[in-house]
C-alpha cells in the first residue's frame, strides 16, 4: 500500500477520534466549567442552605434558591398533567384507532412542529394564554391575575411538549409486535381492552420514558416560560400568581450579574443545578429506552 494513502488514513482517523472524544467530553466540560464559576458561592454557603433557603437577597449576600426551584417544579408538574394524558390518548388514536393515512399525514407535521423555536411558542403564549388567564380563567375562579402566571407558564410548556412527547409515544407503540395485538383481539378483547392490556403493559417502560423526557424538557425550557410566567419572586400555591423558574432567573439577570459580588456565581450555580438534574433524569429514562431497543 502506498504511503500517502496510509498517511491520509492516519490523519483522518486522528481527526475522527478527536471529534468523538471532544463530543463525549462535553458533559464533563460543562460540569467543570460551571462548577469552576460556581465555586466562590459554594465556598461561602453550604449546599443545603442554598437549596432550602427561601431568602433571595443578592445585595446582602443571601442566596436561597427555594423559590426558583419551587416555581420550576410547579410549572413542570402543571405542564405534565396537562400534556401527558392528551399525548397518551392522541398517540393511541393515531396508532391504533385512526386511519393509517391520518398517521402518515400527522408524523411529518408533528416533526415540523417539534422544530418550531421556543420563542415562537412564547409569542403565542403572550398573545393567547396570558390574556385568556387574566380575562376569563382567573375571574371564573373568582380571583384576579395579570395573566403572567404559573398557569400560563404551565400551559405554554404543555403545548411545547406535545410534539416532543407524542413523537416518542408513537415510536413506542410502533415497537409492539402486531402478533401480540392480534392474539389479544382474537381472544375476544375489544380494541380498547387490547390497548389497555397489551399496548400499555408492553409499552410501559417506553411510556414512562417518554413522560420522563418530556418532564426534563419542560424543566429546562427557558425563553417561552420566561415570557409568560411573570418573573416575580414568590412562593404561592395559586396557579394565578406569578412565578420565577430557575432558567428564567439565569436568563433574566445576565446583564447585571457583574456588579454584585457572588451574583454571577449564583447564576452559574443555578445553571449547574439545572444541568445535573436534567442530565440525571435523561440518563435514567434513556437507559430504559436503550434497554428496550436492544432486546
Amino acid at each position, binding site marked *: *500500500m502506498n504511503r500517502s494513502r496510509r498517511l*491520509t*488514513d492516519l490523519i*483522518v*482517523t486522528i*481527526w475522527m*477520534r478527536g*471529534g*468523538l472524544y*471532544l*463530543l463525549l467530553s462535553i*458533559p464533563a466540560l460543562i460540569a467543570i466549567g*460551571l462548577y*469552576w464559576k460556581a465555586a466562590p458561592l459554594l465556598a461561602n454557603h453550604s449546599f443545603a442552605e442554598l437549596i432550602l433557603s427561601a431568602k433571595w437577597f443578592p445585595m446582602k449576600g443571601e442566596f436561597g434558591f427555594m423559590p426558583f426551584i419551587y416555581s420550576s417544579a410547579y410549572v413542570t408538574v402543571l405542564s405534565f398533567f396537562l400534556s401527558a394524558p*392528551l*399525548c*397518551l*390518548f*392522541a398517540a*393511541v*388514536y393515531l396508532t391504533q*384507532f*385512526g386511519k393509517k393515512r391520518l398517521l402518515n399525514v400527522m408524523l411529518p*407535521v408533528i*416533526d*415540523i412542529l417539534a*422544530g*418550531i*423555536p*421556543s*420563542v*415562537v411558542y*412564547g*409569542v403565542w403564549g403572550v*398573545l*393567547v394564554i396570558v390574556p385568556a388567564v387574566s380575562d376569563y380563567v382567573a375571574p371564573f375562579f373568582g380571583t384576579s391575575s395579570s395573566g403572567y402566571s404559573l398557569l400560563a407558564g404551565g400551559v405554554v410548556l404543555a*403545548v411545547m411538549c*406535545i410534539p416532543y412527547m407524542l413523537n416518542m409515544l408513537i415510536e413506542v407503540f410502533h415497537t409492539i409486535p402486531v402478533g401480540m395485538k392480534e392474539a389479544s383481539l382474537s381472544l375476544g378483547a*375489544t380494541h380498547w*381492552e387490547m390497548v389497555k392490556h397489551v399496548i400499555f403493559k408492553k409499552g410501559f417502560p417506553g411510556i414512562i420514558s417518554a413522560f420522563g*423526557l418530556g418532564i426534563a*424538557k419542560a*424543566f*429546562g*425550557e*427557558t*425563553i417561552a416560560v420566561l415570557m409568560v410566567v411573570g418573573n416575580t419572586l414568590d412562593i404561592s400555591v395559586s396557579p394565578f400568581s406569578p412565578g420565577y423558574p430557575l432558567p428564567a432567573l*439565569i*436568563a433574566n439577570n*445576565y446583564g447585571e450579574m457583574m456588579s454584585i459580588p457572588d451574583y454571577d456565581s449564583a447564576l*452559574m450555580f443555578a*445553571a449547574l443545578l*439545572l444541568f445535573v438534574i*436534567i*442530565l440525571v433524569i*435523561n440518563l435514567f429514562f*434513556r*437507559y430504559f*429506552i*436503550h434497554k428496550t431497543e436492544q432486546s
Partner: protein
Amino acid sequence: MRKWKTIEEQIFKVISFLAAYSVIAILLFLLFVVFNKGIGALSWDTILKLPKGGYYFGGEGGILNAIIGSFYLSVGATVLAVFIGLPAALFINVQLIRMKRVQNTIRYLLDALWGIPSIVYGAFGFAVMLFFGLNASLLAGIITVALLITPILVRAFDEVLKTIPVELQEASFSLGSTRTETALKVLFKQGFAGFITALLLAFGRGIGDAASVLFTGGYTDNIPISLDEPVATLPLAIFFQLSSPIEEVRQRAYAAAVVLTIFILVISVSARLLSKRYSRNIIK
C-alpha cells in the same frame, strides 16, 4: 358484562379521538395566531432595513440585522458542528462497528446530551468566554451553538448510518480500501441523504435557539463584519421587542416571529424533499 365492555370501548374511543384532534387543533391554532398577528405587521421595510435612530421607540427600520446575524451564526455553528460531528459519526459506524457495547454507550450518552437545555449551554459558553477573555461576539455565539447542535447532528446522521449493512463495508475492505476510504467513499455516500437531513435539523435548531446566545452572542443594530463583533439574532429580536411597551415595536416582534417560523418551516420541508431526492441512488 358484555355491555359494559362495549360501552367502555366506545368511551375510550371517543376520548382518544378527541385527544388526537385537539392536539392537531391546538398546534394549528398556534400557527394560525402567529401568522395572523404577524402577517399584517410584515413589510419589505421590516425585512430589508437595519434599525434606524429611534427604532426602539417606534421609529423607522427593520430587523435585517437579526436576520443576517442569525444566518451568520447558524451557518458558522453548523460548519463547526460538521467539522466535529461528521468524523465522529463515521468513526462510530466504521471503526467501532465490531464493538456493539461501545457503540451503544456512545449513543446513550449522546441522546442524554440532546436533552440538556440550551440555557445550560449558554451559561457554559459564558464561562468559556470568561476563561479565554472573549466578549459576547459572533465567535462565542458560534462556539456555543455548535456545542448545542453537534450531538443532534451526530445522532441524526448516525441513525441513518447504522442502517447501512455491514456487508457493504466488508466488500469495501475486501477490495483493499483503508478504513478512511470506506468511511468517506462508501458510508458517507450511502448515508448522504441522512447527512442532509441531520445538517438541516441542526441548522434549524441553531437558528431558532435563543437561550444559548443570550449571554454569548450579545445584540447589535449592525451586521457583524468580523468574528469578534456582537451579533443580533432573530429569536432575541423577537424576545426583546415583545417586552417593549410601545405597540409599533411589539408589532415588529410579531413580524419577526413570522419570519423565523417561515425559515423553520422552509428548512424542515426542504430537509424532507432533499432527503427523498438523495436517497434514490442508495444501494439497498
